[in-house]
């Protein structure tokens, strides 16, 4: 058998033009699939990385408090939730509280509704690394209790500059308007999509602006030292939260999981007056990004559709090539049959010839793909604006080629080639020696 494989290998480039024409198809499909899979994995990694660093935890908690039927968004008595996590997971867990609200900012005749995020600057430092300061600094923000950090886009829109003071007005969680004065202590740019349009503020400042009590927060972000098995960890914490007086549950749907991260005061709705509850929704990061997974599946679907068109073209090319090759070499096949070569060995030789050809070009395509990924990831810089920043890290497109992607592409194309080569090869292999030797091409 190795003899026929050796022959097949030697025959790969016997008809150079034909082989290269077919090989280019393999090359393009392998390259295309690698780029699509790398992009898809890159978006997922970048999205969850960006999300976890600033806008969600491995587990994210939102809540609502119902008093006499009136529902107010926010987590009541959040220190007891933190305590429940500490009791269950000890020092291997970090829980950070955030306060979020939307407020209108007024300056020089301009107004804009902005999303404020309040954080505890003594513990919550993840945002610090995501900000590229154009003016001001993180330190000046920490020192100024009513200081805010605003994005360059917001600064340009409202014509704000460093050290400007301005009035903000918000409808608090209860419905009453409240106002406060903030000072711009920094203007930043960020490549992180989730930071681009927020006003970074202090937790205590937003809490008091919202007329809320000291034990209330909008969200809790929970981070584990070992970032895996979040659903199992949630299953462990839910009973503890119940014991602490909360009605805790996982999100009812993917949309509800996203709402956990997006939760912001103020809102209220009315239920029956006899209802008094503290509710928590506990979402894992996998659930939060599940909507992204659907988008990712769509991206992959489009890529696979394009690849399948190319593969269809390859299938036809294989068929035509094989028929031409068999016609070319019909007398050789006849000779092989005459000296006693089995049908299956001839089929194997012809199939192996195509598999070797696809192997060479698929590997070439994958190697080129890796070079393209490396080049694009490192040398192509894009402006981190809007939705585009979902795909960027420090201005570079995030492409993640994985071993499993490479192997999947390789095995899929080789199997495909073997399958579509088999039928014309079987046709060639079955030709009787006398018929083959008597055929004139």
């Amino acid at each position, binding site marked *: 058998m190795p003899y026929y494989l050796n022959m097949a290998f030697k025959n790969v480039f016997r008809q150079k033009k034909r082989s290269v024409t077919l090989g280019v198809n393999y090359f393009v499909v392998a390259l295309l699939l690698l780029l699509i899979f790398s992009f898809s994995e890159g978006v997922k990694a970048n999205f969850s990385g960006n999300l976890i660093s600033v806008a969600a935890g491995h587990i994210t908690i939102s809540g609502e408090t119902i008093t006499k039927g009136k529902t107010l968004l926010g987590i009541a008595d959040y220190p007891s939730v933190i305590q429940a996590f500490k009791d269950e997971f000890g020092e291997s867990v970090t829980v950070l509280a955030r306060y979020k609200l939307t407020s*209108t900012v*007024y300056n020089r005749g301009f*107004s804009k509704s902005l999303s404020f995020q309040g954080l505890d600057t003594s513990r919550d430092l993840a945002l610090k690394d995501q900000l590229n300061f154009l003016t001001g600094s993180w330190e000046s923000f920490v020192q100024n209790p009513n200081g805010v950090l605003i994005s360059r886009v917001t600064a340009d829109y409202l014509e704000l500059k460093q050290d400007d003071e301005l*009035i903000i*007005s918000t*409808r*608090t969680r209860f419905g009453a*308007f409240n*106002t406060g004065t903030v000072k711009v202590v920094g203007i930043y740019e960020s490549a992180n999509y989730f930071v681009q349009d927020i006003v970074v503020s202090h937790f205590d400042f937003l809490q008091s602006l919202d*007329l809320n009590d000291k034990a209330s927060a909008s969200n809790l972000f929970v981070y584990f030292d070992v970032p895996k098995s979040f659903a199992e960890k949630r299953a462990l914490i839910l009973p503890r939260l119940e014991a602490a007086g909360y009605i805790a549950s996982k999100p009812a749907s993917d949309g509800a999981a996203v709402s956990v991260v997006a939760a912001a005061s103020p809102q209220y709705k009315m239920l029956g007056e006899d209802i008094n509850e503290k509710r928590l929704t506990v979402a894992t990061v996998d659930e939060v990004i599940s909507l992204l997974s659907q988008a990712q599946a769509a991206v992959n679907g489009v890529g696979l559709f394009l690849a399948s068109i190319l593969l269809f073209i390859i299938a036809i090319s294989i068929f035509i090539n094989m028929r031409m090759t068999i016609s070319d070499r019909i007398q050789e096949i006849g000779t092989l049959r005459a000296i006693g070569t089995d049908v299956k060995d001839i089929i194997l030789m012809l199939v192996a010839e195509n598999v070797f050809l696809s192997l060479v070009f698929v590997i070439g395509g994958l190697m080129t793909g890796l070079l393209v990924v490396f080049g694009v990831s490192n040398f192509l810089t894009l402006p981190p604006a809007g939705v585009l920043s979902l795909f960027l890290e420090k201005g570079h497109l995030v492409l993640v080629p994985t071993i499993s992607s490479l192997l999947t592409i390789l095995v899929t194309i080789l199997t495909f080639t073997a399958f579509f080569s088999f039928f014309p090869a079987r046709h060639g292999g079955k030709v009787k020696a006398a018929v083959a030797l008597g055929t004139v091409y």
Partner: protein
Amino acid sequence: MKQIIRSIGMMGLFLLFTSGSWAQDAKSLIQQMENKINVEALDLTSTFQLVQKKSGEADRVLRLKIFRRDLAGRFTILFQYPDSEKGKGYTRTGDDLYLYLPSTREFVYRNRKDDVGSSDVRTDLFGKQDLLSQYEPKILGTEKISKFDTTVLELNAKSLDVSFPIQKWYIRVSDGLPMKVENFSASRTLLRTVYYVDYKEVGPGKFLFTKLMSVNNLEKGQSTLLSNLEISTSKIPDYTFSQAFLEEQSR
């Protein structure tokens, strides 16, 4: 010593009495004012034109038809102009306010704190006033607004379930009608000032404002001017205060 204690006690009693009396006066002033501007005995149909002014922008004009039945705490507001807003409307019963969006044919629940068509005028301006259920009033003194003497009342919200936790009402001494209202945030920042420029008597001792200006004190140069175009006190069919009416009008 006993005399001093007695004197202090008497002063305390006096202060308690007078402050209670002032609070009582404040409440009765509000009640008298509301008796004049709430029209329980009548149905009111009026058409208002709102002109919203913003610095650096062209004036925005809205025309609204308002059906009001104070006896039942109901009103319906129908947008008539511009064409882009036509068919939109509000209907309110008690605290429940629904906004109808003809583009999607849906009713959106709003609470009573909604501004009409993103203007500086609140929907509750067009309905029955019930300030004492939400606010605790006190008299601050007197002040001249234009050429009129007014009594200045400060209203502090009983709970934070109101848009403006603090309000100042300037009530004309001569007829007990409001001339100016200042709305403050919880931290006492002036957010909005409403000037009642003119009234029309729609029934015996009952008044409806016919010109009003609402000034946004945070957004400099932004104000809304309301002018009454027509008023009718004819009986309004019950159907007008229903969601079905708004749906029908949008077709």
